[in-house]
């Protein structure tokens, strides 16, 4: 299967840099959640850490395969070799990214349910991955599922802010609003490349807000 190029040509390279930034921020948050989990033994914190670890891994995979595709495209002059290798890198990158992102988002959404029935989590992951990989438009379905899970997660963070009106919880709720809008832009980017770049910029704002919150937490 050949996937459409989502990124406009002028944005190639920048997308990789941004994905690496997102990966680092998600990794920092995930690692810190594990550190807190070791001190508290709270199941929700562990799930939160796992979800951010998967999200971080998905960005790393995305960045690696996007870089390899760019390098392959620049190195080969033979059109057939170029096409086959680019398609292979692209497919591997897209599939791995979809699996990691969906596991990360399902875990985060499951965490918001505050239940310990892990079968619900497995069911969410299986249904999502089957729904995505069996659809005619894999990328579109992936972004659709991601948007739905981000909406569920956002509802949790908005509720959290309303119950606990603090600057920190507000920052996180706003960050997830940006992530949700970014995800909607990625959905549109299947047909309009510019939205892919806008989606990345919205994600950058979201991760900067998450990082700001982390700094404020550490300063306490």
């Amino acid at each position, binding site marked *: 299967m050949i996937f459409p190029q989502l990124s406009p040509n002028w944005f190639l390279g920048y997308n990789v840099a941004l994905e690496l930034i997102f990966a680092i921020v998600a990794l920092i948050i995930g690692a810190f959640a594990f550190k807190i989990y070791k001190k508290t033994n709270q199941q929700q914190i562990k799930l939160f850490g796992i979800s951010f670890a998967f999200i971080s891994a998905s960005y790393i995979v995305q960045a690696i395969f996007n870089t390899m595709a760019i390098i392959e495209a620049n190195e080969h002059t033979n059109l057939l070799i170029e096409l086959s290798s680019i398609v292979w890198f692209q497919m591997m990158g897209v599939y791995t990214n979809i699996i990691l992102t969906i596991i990360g988002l399902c875990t985060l959404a499951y965490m918001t349910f505050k239940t310990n029935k892990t079968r619900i989590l497995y069911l969410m992951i299986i249904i999502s991955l089957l729904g995505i990989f069996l659809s005619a438009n894999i990328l579109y379905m992936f972004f659709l599922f991601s948007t739905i899970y981000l909406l569920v997660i956002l509802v949790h963070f908005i*509720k959290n802010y309303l*119950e606990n009106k603090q600057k920190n919880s507000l920052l996180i709720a706003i960050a997830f609003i940006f992530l949700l809008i970014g995800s909607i832009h990625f959905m549109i980017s299947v047909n309009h490349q510019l939205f892919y770049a806008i989606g990345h910029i919205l994600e950058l704002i979201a991760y900067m807000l998450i990082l700001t919150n982390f700094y404020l*937490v550490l300063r306490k």
Partner: protein
Amino acid sequence: MNKKRDRLEIIHDILLSIRDKTGVVRQTHILYKSNLSHQMLVEYVGELIEKGFILEKKDKKKKKFYELTDKGFNYLSDYKVIRGFVDSYGLG
């Protein structure tokens, strides 16, 4: 009206009641300071022992008393940061 305490806060209150008491800490002292029912306290203390936050010991008269472990002390010293992180994401 005061907000209902979550698990992290209850654990904090139990650990604090043990740390701040000079001398031997018995279950009645924790019960009084942490403002919990006896049944809830037994559950929490059992969990805290199992997870390594506190130690249950017996004196010469075979009466139980409690001490904080390093993990318990660490929890108290990092509580503000833990609280900040947990409240940001609604993990409590």
